[in-house]
């Protein structure tokens, strides 16, 4: 499957950190996310971003190019979302209509971008090294009720099946010159495609239900998952990095 929808997931499955305990990666990632949220842009966010990038492209061996691609979507939002903050009503300086760029506004906007970039990078520490389904499985230890996790992990499996169907159908339409169609007919094609995929999704879900019943499915969807060794070195490294960022903030402020 070649699709940007699966870029992070593909990386996660291939990552050498895949075999680490999910809890340990979540600990590192979430504490970095919270640090990015709670510390000032300088030096907190800058350090969080640096530490995250170090872990992702360093020990977790994710291609820097991939990380860059992944960051495009959040960056788009961050830029668009920061514009209204940079421009303020009234004041002097360059602007559009009643809106003017002010040094204060610009500072706040840049700070927001810094928080956003650092936070997203911190989140990517777990995202690029842990398949989504491992996170779902890990949630069992948080006492999330089983049926909810069953639904979430089935979603994970089904979304790849559906995604490949959706992409194949779109490509087949282009092959029959679907991109040359009139605007009206293209809209109809999109609606028909969605309708067909819904019908097939339903058929698939029913087929899967039958297939699973044959394998003894009644209520529980229990499967084996490999036990991962706790790695105290990793935990200490994680705690030390986060503590380091906090210490730097305290010293530098």
């Amino acid at each position: 499957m070649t699709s940007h929808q699966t870029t992070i997931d593909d990386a996660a499955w291939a990552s050498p950190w895949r075999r680490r305990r999910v809890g340990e990666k979540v600990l590192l990632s979430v504490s970095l996310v919270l640090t990015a949220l709670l510390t000032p842009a300088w030096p907190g966010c800058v350090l969080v971003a640096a530490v995250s990038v170090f872990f992702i492209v360093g020990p977790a061996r994710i291609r820097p190019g991939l990380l860059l691609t992944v960051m495009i979507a959040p960056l788009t939002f961050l830029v668009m979302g920061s514009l209204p903050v940079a421009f303020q009503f009234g004041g002097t300086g360059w602007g559009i209509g009643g809106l003017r760029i002010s040094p204060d506004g610009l500072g706040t906007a840049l700070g927001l971008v810094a928080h956003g970039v650092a936070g997203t990078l911190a989140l990517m520490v777990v995202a690029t090294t842990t398949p989504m389904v491992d996170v779902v499985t890990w949630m069992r230890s948080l006492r999330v009720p089983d049926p909810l996790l069953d639904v979430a992990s089935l979603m994970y499996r089904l979304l790849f099946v559906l995604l490949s169907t959706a992409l194949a159908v779109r490509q087949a339409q282009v092959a029959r010159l679907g991109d040359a169609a009139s605007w009206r007919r293209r809209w109809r094609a999109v609606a028909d495609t969605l309708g067909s995929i819904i019908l097939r999704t339903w058929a698939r879900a029913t087929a899967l239900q039958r297939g699973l019943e044959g394998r003894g499915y009644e209520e529980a969807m229990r499967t084996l998952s490999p036990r991962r060794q706790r790695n105290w070195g990793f935990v200490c490294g994680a705690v030390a990095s986060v503590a380091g960022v906090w210490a730097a903030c305290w010293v530098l402020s």
Partner: protein
Amino acid sequence: MSALLAAVDLTAGFHDHVVLRDATLRIAAGRRIALLGANGSGKTTLLRCLSGALRPSAGRVEVGGRPLSHDRASLRAHRRLVQLVLQDPDAQLFSADVTQDVSFGPLNLGLDDSAAWARVEEALDLLSITHLAERPTHHLSYGERKRVAIAGAVAMRPEVLLLDEPTAGLDPMGVGELLDTLRRLDTTVVLATHDVDLALAWADEVAVVCGGAVTQGDPALLGDADLIGRARLRMPWQLELVARLGLPAAPAARTMDDVVSRLGTQR
């Protein structure tokens, strides 16, 4: 002798559309049976009835001579005995990775984790897919997914394995490997296929589904031009060649070796 598993006078279908009518198939222990028939002839319906997944509207499924009742407890016991692998592996695989998926059946049998692990390893080994154990399901090729689906059934150690078109879409060597695997398994196998040559060479018995009924017999049955025509099949080349050359049909030449030796003695 009562068959290990049998469909007796089975009538089944969907909604108003009857697919099977008074179909009977007897599966003796240890046999390899090839189930043949046109697209839509009812092969899959028959397999689903045998597996207990579909309840026939008339007739019965018999296990060791006793009719299967479709209550929950009986079906549970039946699934330990009989496993069906569907044609589309995506109708069977639901987990994110291979080990997880294969472990589903054994855990449903009530095995504890370590016993289930052993079953998974055994099944992956039998299917020669140990290297796939930690791979995500959605990164597997079609042929790999087919093997994983079979492993999921094999891990339940059924006495009867029902396979719906397991060779469809596999390359010739993949087909050969799969048949070798099935030989290694110590189970009774019913394999639905469109490949008449393969059926002739592999099976102990063939069963042809046609017009809602099942004709069961020796693989030489595939030399019956009338039946084959009605069933939208074709004659296996081995039998057709022998017939075209005007050689005696019996004993049936089933493999390339048979044909070569038969022709050798003729010249």
